[in-house]
Structures are given as C-alpha cells and as structure tokens.
C-alpha cells in the first residue's frame, strides 16, 4: 500500500522584493526620494514529495534557492505562494507545534549557547522538547557511541572545533527524535574524518529511527554516501529529481580510459596513436568532446571519449595494438562533471523525462 508522503510541496514560490541601490553620491540622494525595487525569485514554482525514511540530497550552486527552500520547510520563511504540508503541518502557520516534530541543523550556525557548556543547551532542549529522562539517556548513549560526545559536553561551545561543534549540533537537533531532519550544509568546512563521522551518524539514525533526512550540500560525496535520491535546483527551479543512478545514466556523457605504459620509451608509438585517433571517431569527428588523449605523466595516459559515439572495446583494442600497456582503468566521468554541466546549462535538461515516481519510498 503506498504510504502518503511525509513532505509534499506544491507550486511553492518565494519572491523577495529588493531595493535597487543607485551608485555614487547623487544616486544615494536619489535613493532617499525615489526607490526602485526589483523582484528576486529565490524559489519559483517547485514541486516535490518526500516519503518516510528517505534521505534526499538537495544540491545546487550558491544562491540557487536551496536554503530558501529549507527555511520555508522549517517554518522560518513564509512563502509567496504555493502549498506545503510537512508531517501533517503547514510549517509557517503552526510553527511551534510543527518544529517539535523536526530537527534542524544549519552548518554555518549553531543552536547551542555559545558561551556556556554544551550540556546546558542539552538540558534546555530536553526540557523544551519534553523528552523523558529515560529517552534522553538512551539517545545520548547512542549519540555518544557514534559521535563521541562525552568529552565535549563540559566545554564552552565557542571553544569547540568546527567538527566537534557540528557533532554537538547534530545531537542537539535529534535529541527529541524527530521524524524529519533538515540539514543545511552539515559538512561544510569539516575535515575528512569529521565528515565521515557525520555521515556514519546520519546513516545510523536513518536506519535505527527511520528518520527522513533532507540535506543540502556542496559535497557530492555526502550525496553518494548517503542519498539515493537527488534533487538539483538552480535559479529557483528544480532541474532534476530522481535517483542518483539515473542521473548518471542519463547525463553521463564521457568515459575515460586510463592506461599505464609498460616502459617510458614509447613516445613515438604514442604519438602515432594520437595521430590516428580521428580515424577511430565516427565520421572523422575528433573534437575534444569526442576523443581526447592527455598524458598525465611519463607512464600514464588518459583517453576521454564520448560513450555514445565510441565503443570502449574498440578503443581498448586500438590501444593494445598501438602501445605496450601494463594496466587499464575504465572510469565514468566524475559526478562533479555532470553536475557542473547541469549548472552551466550544457546538459540538455529538456531531454530529461521524469520517469514515473516510485510509489514505494526508498528505505535502506
């Protein structure tokens, strides 16, 4: 039986009216008497649904409208138009009742009291979310296992490192075990180990409590490690919404073959191979996008090719015939490249056909 979505967003828009400043002294004076406004469409007509237990990555370039969406979902901003229902609440209309059922972490801010020990903030949160001592102890135990909080709790928050603070903030956001967790750039500025901690923790929480997670990030590793579903937003509109795997399938354009030569004195043979490359491409089209050979160092070469036009087995055969190769790696183009193309408008989003929604929510 298909479950009703936990979060549903329909035709949601947020427009700001911003005051257009004129430059210089004269302009400044004119500003005093006559103001011109321009409307900024931070979010324009977005639609999506999120099922219980899903972990969704919400990505987009700076200023794309990610944070604005999160702020509407958390009841901080009132939308200009559209509808939204989250966990049965209209966030901005039933703010206090609603926020009891969500957890929020803004990577660039903290909800902990800055100048006092973190434990004081936890005590306060336990009280305002009405968490029983037993639940509190049990959850702190779990948080402690994954996040290692114990030694952090008695230190004033301002003295914690960014990674330590983020661990505390995550625990604080989840103290009342909310069914929904919103994370706005939770791994921003963290080192690899700290990022790994955070991701492990999110997976554990999602597994154990079936917490629904919506996270924005610039770090695609977050997405690859945590989310099956990805939403890409730019200039206020959703460009892609679907599984990460399908994004790759549809927009993966190039693959690359890395090959390592057996010895260093094959320059002549390599040059001859490079010279013959156009012959391998269909219709002699050897533009950089179709086939490109780069020498990474003396022994290593990388050949990028358009997977739609050139077959990799043909290429391998040609390489083997031309040079003496010790090792081969065939790789997809990194996901960053795909996203970069989508942001810059190169990828043809019009060709993207949203496949019928899976009715069963993704659970892992």
């Amino acid at each position, binding site marked *: 039986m298909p479950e009703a979505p936990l979060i549903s967003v329909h035709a949601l828009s947020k427009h700001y009216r911003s005051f257009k400043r004129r430059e210089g002294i004269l302009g400044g004076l004119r500003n005093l008497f006559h103001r011109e406004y321009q409307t900024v469409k931070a979010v324009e007509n977005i639609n999506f649904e999120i099922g219980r237990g899903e972990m969704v990555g919400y990505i987009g370039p700076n200023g794309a409208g990610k944070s604005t969406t*999160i702020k509407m979902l958390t*009841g901080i901003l009132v939308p200009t138009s559209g509808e939204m229902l989250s966990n049965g609440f209209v966030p901005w209309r039933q703010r206090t009742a609603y*926020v*009891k059922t969500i957890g929020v972490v803004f990577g660039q801010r903290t909800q902990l009291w800055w100048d006092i020990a973190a434990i004081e903030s936890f005590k306060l949160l336990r009280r305002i*979310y009405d968490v029983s001592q037993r639940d509190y102890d*049990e959850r702190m135990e779990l948080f402690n296992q994954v996040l290692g909080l114990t030694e952090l709790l008695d230190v004033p928050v301002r003295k914690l490192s960014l990674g330590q603070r983020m661990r505390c903030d995550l625990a604080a956001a989840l103290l009342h075990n909310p069914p929904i967790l919103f994370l706005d750039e939770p791994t921003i500025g963290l080192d690899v180990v700290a990022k790994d901690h955070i991701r492990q923790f999110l997976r554990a929480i999602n597994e154990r409590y*079936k917490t629904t997670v919506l996270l924005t990030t610039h770090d695609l590793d977050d997405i690859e490690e945590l989310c099956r579903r990805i939403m890409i937003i730019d200039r206020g509109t959703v460009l892609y919404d679907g599984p990460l795997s399908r994004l790759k399938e549809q927009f993966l354009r190039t693959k690359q073959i890395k090959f390592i030569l057996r010895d260093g004195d094959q320059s002549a043979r390599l040059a001859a191979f490079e010279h013959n490359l156009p012959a391998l491409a269909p219709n002699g089209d050897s533009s950089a996008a179709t086939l490109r050979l780069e020498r990474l160092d003396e022994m290593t070469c990388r050949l990028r090719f358009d997977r739609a036009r050139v077959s990799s087995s043909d290429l391998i055969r040609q390489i083997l015939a031309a040079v003496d190769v010790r090792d081969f790696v065939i790789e997809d183009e990194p996901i960053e490249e795909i996203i970069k193309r989508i942001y810059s408008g190169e990828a043809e989003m019009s060709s993207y056909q949203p496949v019928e929604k899976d009715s069963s929510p993704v659970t892992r």
Partner: protein
Amino acid sequence: MAAAQTFPLPVHKPSPLAGLKVYAEFVRIGFVNILAFRLRYYTGIITYLINVTVYFFIWRAVFANATGPIAGFSLPQILTYVSAGWILRSFYWNTIDQEMAYEVIDGKIAMDFIKPVSVQGMWLARAMGESAFRLILLTAPTAIIVTLLFPVLPPASKLNFALFLAAAIGSFFIMGALNFIIGTCAIPLTSILALIRAKFWLIELLSGLLIPLNFFPRPIQVLSSWLPFEHIAYTPLQIYLGRLSLAETLRLLAVEYFWVAALLFLGHLWWIRATRKITIHGG
C-alpha cells in the same frame, strides 16, 4: 539496545504548568549564560556608583539655595529618589533590543524560529534570568555600597516596600516588552541603532529616572500619564517614598500592569506581522 522504533511523534501534553517549566528553563539558561560575562558586572557596579554620585551632587547643588521642598521633594527625599532609582535601574535594565538587532544582522535569529516556544516568551524569560543574576551581582552590591555612602531614607513602610517590589517587577516587564518591540523592528529595518538610541534617551527622561516627572511642565506630565514610560521608575519610586495615598498607589499599580499586558500583546502582534515578510541573511 532496543530494536528499531517506529516514529515516536512527540506527544503534545497541553498542561499550562509544563509550558511554564519550559520558560523556567530559559530563565535558567539566561542566568547561566550571563555567568560567562560576570566580569562585566564588576565594572557595572562602578558605573552605577558614578551615576549616583553625579546626580547626588547635582541635586545637592540644586537644593543649596532652596528654603523648602522643590516640587514637593525635600533634599533627603530627592537624594533617596536618585539612589533608589539607580539601584532599581540596575535590576530592570536589559538589552533584548540590542541582542535581537545583532541576531538579525548575523542571521542567528533563524535559530529562534526552530524552537517550539513563543519567541517573545523566550526572550523575556532569558532577560528574566539575566535580571535575577543582576539582582545578586549588581543590584545588591550597588544597593549596599550606595546606602553606606549616601544618606538613603528607608522605605515609607513595610507595605510601601512590598508594593515597591511589585512595581519594580512591573518595571522589568515594561522594559522587556518595549525592548522586544524595538528589537522586532530589526526584522524589517535591519539596522535599528538609531532607534535603540532614541528609545534609550526617551526612557531615561520619561521614566523619571533622571528628573522626577513633577519637575516637568504640566502638559508634559499629562502627556506622560498616558504613556507607559513613567511606570518604569517614577511610579515605583513614588511608592517607595510613600508620596501617594494607598488608593492612588493601587490605581497606579493597576495602570502599570495594564501597560505590561498591553505592551506584551502589542509585541506579540508586531512580531507576527514583522515575520510575515522576513528575509534571513545568508541564503
């Protein structure tokens, strides 16, 4: 460890006492938070002492050539008024407006929204915790030193003192409610430094802290009686000195608490209106 639980949606227990406990927790954290800044209060004591000293000598100079009371105040009365006034101010004073302005500029105000409490209640509760702290670390030492250094009259009677305390608590709420209203202006206006400064001088003057209001021309006194400000200092100090009849005292206390309710309600409405159009920095 227990097996995976299904979604334990927080149960909403509508108990008014439980609601108060939440705010009590904010009072506690306001208190604990200010502990981190306790050094500031040692200098605060000196600042308040200097203020009392300055006004002490000003009023002594004013009364130097006087043959009798001025505007109904004798010299000992006015000196007590000044001393008690500053002691009182050390208690009711708070900086909700400045802190809110700072949080709006910083974008931190967003974190207030994600807490399941009334934002106004939260700020007031925090300020209450701070005032409780000030009472111990600022008001009490200032009061002791001032009474040792200057000739301060005792309260007119035990009843007067009790009613003075009730009025002083009202002062805190008027101040807090006003500051919340000013602080909320930061949401549409962003920069409210000028507004905060204007409010500062308006309150120093119209609260009667610097000069008792009956020293002002009649029209200003009448105007002031229709405004909330004089209940911050003038009303409690009049009660302390026993300058009013019991009936008049009770009437003024009622008016003061009417203002408390009215300003809290206004602040509530203003907050709702201001946050409809909110734009939060950083996103």
